[in-house]
């Protein structure tokens, strides 16, 4: 039976098998890929030119169905609602059994389907060769061996997708279940997935499916289905989902043993040994410290030091800005326009100079360092190493992923909290991200400023922020109802990152940065200019004096920095940086600590509203702002008492 593939191509499979890499190869549209499970948390869309502009959908990985986490639900939803799609399952060649266990479910959905067995190079390196022709015969669907990161097998995949048939696949489940499926089939909608597949998902207890069904069929029919499920459960000791899973696993095991030819490879490789070292209870810590030092050197010393020095002082300060100032002053007749363009809060002197000369080199180096680590597989090791530390915050080591991602961009990280299992974990991590995790842009500016004062200043800032993070996390854990989820996570193999892939990823992130940040920077500089002109800024400074000067001990001009902080926290830090010599070391540290904790940037605030609703976002903001000022004031007093930097 051949069906034309009109509706599009749906990429599905387990986490971290390379769906997003294939998506990029097929569509040319880049979605961020990395070597850890849970990089993709929502469905992305593109279109494949080689397939007649067929729409292509990339979905978050599912460990198994029924779906359990927010990102997995998105995949189930796509399977249920996308009409007339071809399924492209991406499997992991080195873990064929697990991949096939999902194949057994997908292949009965009544959709045309192709299986890509990805990472065959890694499987071969580990001594497993897969006979794809034999596998295709066993499954009754086209199978293509691929190495997505190097484009191997993609052309053949495109050919197979064009003529993909609905598989003639049937897996026989235990008799009681088969009987129930027959009874359930007429009750289920016939215009979506095959009723048999819907029945299997329903028996396994997929909540997302039940929500979807509630809008499609009558409540009485749903009741009948539930009664059927309860009746079948009576025949088994184990939960139905486990029984189904075992049937599929047994099938996968049978097929895998027939198509995998073992090639002996002795001993653990260097990568594997390094992998053990990274999670070792003792040696893991020196490894972490070296990694952190490496980042500090590359981003802090090289990016924020050398590159910024070259760009900001030499290029912009020495060449471009004087030239531009001269140009404006001799060609533009209106003095107010001079101020607008090249004045103290000028669009060029403040906006563009900061964005291009100060922050751009810092985020570029950070994104490169981050990309290398992401692709190496180190972050998943960090999950294990940090698990114990996260226990106190009511979280498990998986929370380290959004937290580290937050050091890149808090907005992206807030979205990534979807990989966490419970709403409770998501809320705690989102709150901590909004409060105490500085993003790369801000981090860079902060590191640059503090390194200019002393190492002690950096240490004070770091300890304060960490203290707030731990204390607030601990309190949140105490106050929020619910239980902590113990850690279970997959550790992907350590790999040497491919430079081309890291650069593509860095470029994609930089593009996003430039698109988001530069307009905001200009708006911010413009808003300050207008406020200054209208006399609102001096008035605001006056009004904020009790807090900014009285409580924090900062000059009133620092109010402008906090105002900028509303747009983006790094603008705020940059504003302090611009005040330079007007601030003592102590004032700088107090100002930066306050700004680090201060409101999350506008974009991440919108993301929090989107993910958690307006009420919770407002509540977070109401907690964060006073807290930031409270901590800042305390620090001011403590440092004065200690006689530091006054």
């Amino acid at each position, binding site marked *: 039976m051949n069906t034309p593939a009109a509706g599009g191509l749906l990429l599905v499979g387990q986490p971290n098998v390379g769906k997003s890499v294939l998506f990029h190869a097929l569509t040319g549209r880049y979605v961020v890929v990395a070597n850890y499970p849970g990089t993709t948390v929502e469905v992305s869309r593109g279109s494949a030119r080689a397939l007649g502009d067929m729409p292509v959908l990339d979905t978050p990985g599912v460990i198994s169905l029924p779906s359990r986490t927010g990102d997995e639900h998105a995949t189930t939803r796509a399977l249920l609602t996308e009409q007339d799609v071809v399924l492209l399952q991406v499997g992991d060649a080195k873990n*064929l059994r697990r991949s096939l266990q999902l194949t057994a479910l997908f292949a009965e959905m009544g959709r045309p389907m192709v299986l890509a067995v990805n990472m065959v190079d890694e499987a071969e390196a580990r001594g497993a060769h897969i006979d794809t022709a034999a596998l295709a015969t066993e499954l009754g669907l086209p199978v293509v061996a691929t190495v997505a990161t190097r484009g191997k097998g993609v052309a053949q995949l495109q050919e197979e997708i064009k003529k993909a048939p609905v598989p003639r696949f049937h897996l026989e489940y235990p008799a009681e279940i088969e009987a129930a499926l027959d009874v359930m089939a007429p009750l289920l909608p016939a215009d979506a997935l095959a009723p048999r597949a819907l029945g299997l998902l329903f028996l396994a207890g997929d909540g997302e499916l039940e929500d979807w069904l509630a809008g499609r069929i009558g409540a009485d029919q749903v009741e009948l289905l539930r009664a059927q499920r309860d009746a079948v459960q009576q025949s088994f000791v184990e939960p139905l989902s486990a029984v189904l899973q075992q049937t599929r696993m047994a099938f996968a095991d049978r097929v895998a043993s027939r198509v995998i030819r073992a090639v002996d490879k002795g001993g653990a490789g260097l990568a594997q040994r390094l992998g053990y070292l990274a999670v070792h209870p003792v040696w893991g810590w020196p490894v972490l410290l070296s990694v952190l030092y490496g980042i500090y050197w590359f981003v802090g010393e090289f990016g924020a030091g050398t590159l910024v020095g070259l760009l900001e002082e030499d290029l912009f300060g020495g060449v471009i800005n004087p030239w531009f100032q001269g140009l404006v002053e001799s060609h533009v007749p209106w003095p107010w326009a001079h101020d607008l363009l090249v004045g103290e809060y000028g669009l060029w002197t403040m906006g563009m100079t900061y964005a291009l000369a100060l922050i751009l080199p810092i985020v570029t180096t950070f994104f490169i360092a981050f990309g290398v680590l992401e692709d190496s597989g180190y972050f998943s090791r960090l999950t294990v190493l940090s698990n114990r530390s996260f226990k106190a915050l009511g979280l498990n080591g998986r929370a380290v992923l959004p937290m580290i991602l937050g050091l890149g961009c808090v907005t992206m990280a807030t979205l990534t909290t979807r990989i966490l299992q419970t709403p409770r974990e998501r809320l705690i991590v989102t709150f901590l991200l909004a409060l105490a995790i500085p993003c790369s842009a801000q981090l860079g500016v902060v590191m640059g400023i503090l390194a200019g004062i002393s190492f002690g200043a950096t240490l004070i800032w770091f300890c304060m922020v960490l203290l707030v993070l731990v204390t607030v996390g601990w309190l949140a854990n105490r106050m929020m109802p619910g239980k902590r989820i113990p850690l279970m996570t997959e550790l992907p193999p350590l790999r040497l990152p491919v430079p081309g892939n890291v650069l593509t990823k860095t470029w994609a992130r930089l593009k996003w940065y430039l698109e988001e940040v530069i307009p905001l920077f200009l708006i911010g500089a413009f808003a300050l200019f207008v406020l200054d002109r209208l006399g609102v800024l001096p008035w605001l400074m006056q009004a904020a004096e009790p807090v900014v000067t009285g409580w924090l001990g900062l000059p009133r001009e620092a109010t402008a920095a906090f105002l900028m902080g509303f747009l983006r926290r790094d603008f705020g830090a940059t504003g302090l940086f611009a005040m330079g010599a007007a601030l003592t070391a102590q004032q700088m540290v107090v100002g930066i600590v306050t700004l680090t904790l201060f409101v999350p940037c506008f974009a991440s605030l919108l993301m929090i509203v989107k993910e958690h609703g307006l009420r919770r976002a407002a509540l977070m903001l109401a907690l964060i702002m006073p807290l930031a000022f409270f901590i800042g004031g305390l620090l001011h007093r403590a440092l004065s008492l200690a006689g530091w930097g006054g």
Partner: protein
Amino acid sequence: MSKPKTLTDVPARSHVHIEGFTPDTSHELRERLLAYGLIPGQHIRVLAQKPVTVLQIEHTELALEKVLAACVLVKKQA
């Protein structure tokens, strides 16, 4: 018969077979473990016991916190 062994009772670097799960293992956990391929009879290698249990099944490395590893019954390879 001695008390059944769980994954936490065997030292690192040992090879074991999965026997099943303790009776108090929740449905959801059982399902997740099965999805990773921890089915009765499956051979696995225990790679580490600290800071959490790390095991290798096929070519997947899986990290399990102690309370979860204690739900998996295993038998030492003869």
